[in-house]
């Protein structure tokens, strides 16, 4: 028995983790370091595209499929446009955002903070599946 498995079972026996958590941890240990290395390598790859895939089964004549691939660079460039908003308009935009509960100052969006936002999108996946259509939004 490996050291990791022993530790997980000891934590389970001591009641520090639940059976479900132990199962997940054991599965992660079984997958081994190669998977985590692959995952890390994937994390180091920059996100290139925002994908929107729609598979509508609503049509009377047949299904409709939509496949849209938007470069993340376009998103970055779009956010960069906020830097050219005149100061007076910027104040109004900030006030409108604050009114909607979004407390950010668009004038303070730096390339670093923008990268952070884009990085957070890596884990974004929107899946909508009903009898009429299947929509998937994700980053790759």
């Amino acid at each position: 028995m490996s050291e990791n498995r022993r530790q997980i079972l000891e934590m389970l026996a001591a009641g520090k983790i639940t059976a479900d958590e132990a199962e997940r941890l054991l599965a992660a240990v079984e997958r081994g370091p190669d998977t985590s290395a692959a995952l890390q390598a994937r994390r180091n790859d920059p996100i290139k595209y925002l994908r929107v895939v729609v598979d509508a089964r609503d049509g009377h004549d047949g299904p409709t499929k939509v496949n849209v691939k938007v470069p993340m660079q376009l998103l970055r460039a779009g956010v960069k446009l906020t830097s050219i908003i005149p100061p007076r308009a910027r104040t109004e935009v900030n006030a409108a955002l604050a009114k909607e509960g979004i407390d950010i100052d668009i004038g303070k969006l730096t390339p670093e903070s923008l990268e952070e936002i884009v990085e957070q999108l890596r884990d974004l996946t929107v899946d909508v599946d009903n009898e009429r259509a299947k929509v998937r939004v994700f980053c790759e």
Partner: protein
Amino acid sequence: MSWMPPLFLIVHILPNRSHRGLRLWVPVFLIWILLLPFVLVLLPVFFIVCAAIDIHPFRTLGAFLHLLGSLGGTHVEVDSPDANVFIHVY
């Protein structure tokens, strides 16, 4: 960061899944070349407008060039019973 504007655009519009339809391969770089003299002529006007509405002209130009340069790789594909549309920006 890419400052290169899109060079080619491929547009396919095939109605009713037929083989006949619109298949365009648009050399967009020719449009930029044609637009360049107009841009140069309108540049002073642009600077005046920027000064009037209190925005930084060079930053604005940079942002628009960046936006244009980021269009490459955009891909739109719609396959419906009525038509099949394919657009790809290179």
